């Protein structure tokens, strides 16, 4: 199964219409859960997190890690309040994990993640209004007569052509995962040579914590 099919995406044929995902209200039946974590940037933290999933037979669908530069002050008080709470560069990381599975077990997984010493917090954002985004790089085989069509698709999806060769091109597109699913679906008939997706990142709206 291609990544697109496994997501069960429906292809949006009118790219002009803004693709905004409505909040998933039926949390219990949401096919995918997105969990955000603030972690201490320590060796082994990723293994501990991965083991929390694999021990229960859960597969991580996507995982994005990056350094965190801002950390809420109240999170860094530690066991001794009043300690220096300014995060040093490289001290914390952000992770966004997408996975599927039954909600009771996922709730248990999130609780077990929170128990890990190096995890500052873990939040399941399923059903919440969040801003989410993903990046994809697609390498497409380009026959001469299809070149214009492909460029039109790219333009409609606000994708940038970042490599332009005689037989192929690479398009870069960012946005919600559904939008990328649709974009990839439209390019599929032309022959996708390679495809790399970054995995989903998200941020809670307003003053909510991610």
């Amino acid at each position, binding site marked *: 199964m291609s990544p697109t099919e496994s997501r069960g995406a429906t292809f949006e044929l009118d790219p002009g219409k803004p693709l905004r995902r409505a909040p998933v209200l039926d949390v219990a039946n949401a096919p995918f859960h997105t969990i955000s974590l603030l972690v201490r940037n320590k060796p082994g933290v990723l293994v*501990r997190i991965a*083991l929390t999933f694999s021990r229960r037979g859960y597969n991580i669908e996507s995982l994005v890690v990056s350094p965190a530069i801002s950390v809420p002050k109240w999170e860094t008080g530690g*066991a001794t309040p009043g300690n*220096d709470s300014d995060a040093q560069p490289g001290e914390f990381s952000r992770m966004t994990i997408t996975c599927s599975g039954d909600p009771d077990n996922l709730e248990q997984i999130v*609780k077990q993640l929170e*128990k890990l*010493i*190096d995890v500052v917090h873990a939040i399941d954002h399923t059903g919440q209004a969040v801003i989410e985004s993903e990046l994809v790089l697609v390498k497409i085989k380009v026959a001469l007569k299809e070149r214009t069509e492909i460029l039109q698709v790219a333009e409609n999806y606000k994708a940038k052509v970042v490599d332009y060769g005689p037989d192929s091109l690479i398009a870069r597109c960012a946005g919600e995962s559904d939008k990328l699913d649709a974009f990839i679906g439209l390019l599929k008939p032309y022959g996708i040579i390679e495809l790399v997706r970054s995995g989903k990142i998200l941020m809670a709206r307003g003053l909510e914590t991610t």
Partner: protein
Amino acid sequence: MNAPTSLKTPTGGEVVIRCLEREGVEYIFGYSGGAAMPIFDALVDAKVKLVLVRHEQGATHMADGYARSTGKPGVVLVTSGPGATNCVTGLLTALMDSVPMIVLTGQTITPMLGKDAFQEADVTGITYPVVKHSYLVKDARDIPRVMKEAFHIATTGRPGPVLIDLPKDITQGPCSAPYVDTVNLPGYRVPGRADSAKVRQAADFLSKARKPVLYVGHGAVMSNAGDAIMRLADKLGAPIVNTLLGKGACREDSPINLGMLGMHGTAYANKAVAGCDLIMAIGARWDDRITGKLSAFCPDAVKIHIDIDRAEFGKVLKPHVSLEGDARLVVEDLLPLVHKADTADWWKEIHQWRKAYPLKYPKKGGLRAQHVLDRLDKLGGRDCIITTDVGQHQMWAAQFCLTTKNRHWLSSGGAGTMGFGFPAAIGAALANPGKKAWCVVGDGGFQMTLCELATAALQKVPVKILVINNSYLGMIRQWQELFFDNRISGADLEGNPDFVKLAEAYGVPAKRVKRAGDVDKVLKWAMAHDSGPCLVEAEVVKEDNVFPMIPAGAPLTGMIIEKPKTKMEKPTGST
């Protein structure tokens, strides 16, 4: 923050040992090896005492026994590679039963990490699933901070084992980092008191219950909640039942304590749980040995769950009220808020069950383990520390040896580790000079760690070993008899040594008992032998079964109190 006092810059190994001393560590249970030599070298001049074991697994169980019997963390020091991997079973045992432990492992020098150096193993990698937390120290300056954090993590919240992997160049080289007295662990929370609105809600439920049961686990032992629970039970008129690990939190000889519940618990404890209208778990986790078939477990009863680990709420079942906090503090907060309920009818029922289904065993047909353990209890055993191994003898000891004091019953519950009992008793005896420590072991489990006879003999640890010898893995044989058409497979321990001669070979005095009439004499001899270890081998009937029994996966009401006449279905529950 004060610098080390010595003028010469100490080695990393010396700083490790100083840190242990600053934490008040009395004993290290260890076994040496190349990668740990700088730390062992630092022990020569240290106040902390080394107990040299004969196998690393023994060291972990000794530290475990030390920790369970005191509440202070047990400390293990081993070398790299096989020394460290031999600790994995002990780590699992400690993690499953929430026992604070610090395991220091030697490691190859940092430039050789990952290069398959001699006796190198990815120890942090191997142990991730069996530790509460772990460290690989790659900079000597981190040693004081890591040591401070390790003790904090091991002993606070839900306790557990912490492993520190120490490369040899780190412990051999200089370390001038100052000692630290505080920890900064963002995101690590230590719950104390529970949410007051939830406490009031729980108190309302408790005050309304007509058939309440208090279900007491290891968390109550660890937070020393026994007195508060007894007062709560008195005020509510509620019976207490305890788990295998909860033995001793509340006196088992009290009339309001119905003893152990679960798979091999007392019939009246299980009947009370099956018939209750409210059950409150106090530091217990609805283990599958307790609930049996989950969907049939107290389906109509109100469930209240007190736990320091919020991940336990909803892990097995969803409670009506979850109280996150220290068991003693939560129960103390509940006390003034509850009202005495009318539970007279409930007690009438319970008294009937107590009368109708007492613990019993056949009096004829040779020496029975139950008789030996019953006599041990009557001859002062209930004031001693008792450790057990795993199997039939463990369940019989749990049934017949009442525990009346906190931290006096040490048994591997969650992991069910054979080989635990004897080394754990050594650790407990060292930690509690002046108290008598018995270990009740089977002939199977004892042989897994009996090399520690040398340790006990050398250190003159006054541990009293009671080997219940039926020449079988008795619990396995019991299941094969009941559920597998008596097809005995891998359970016959033919070829056992002569345990008396074996003990004597280590310089440990030993006696054998084969007749019920001789039991008291031999137990009294052992009880009085306090100058060092001694061993009693009880040759008991080979084929005997532990009852009552709730077959794994069956509901509590499926409890059997004797061998059924008809063939039984294979159990569906876990093991």
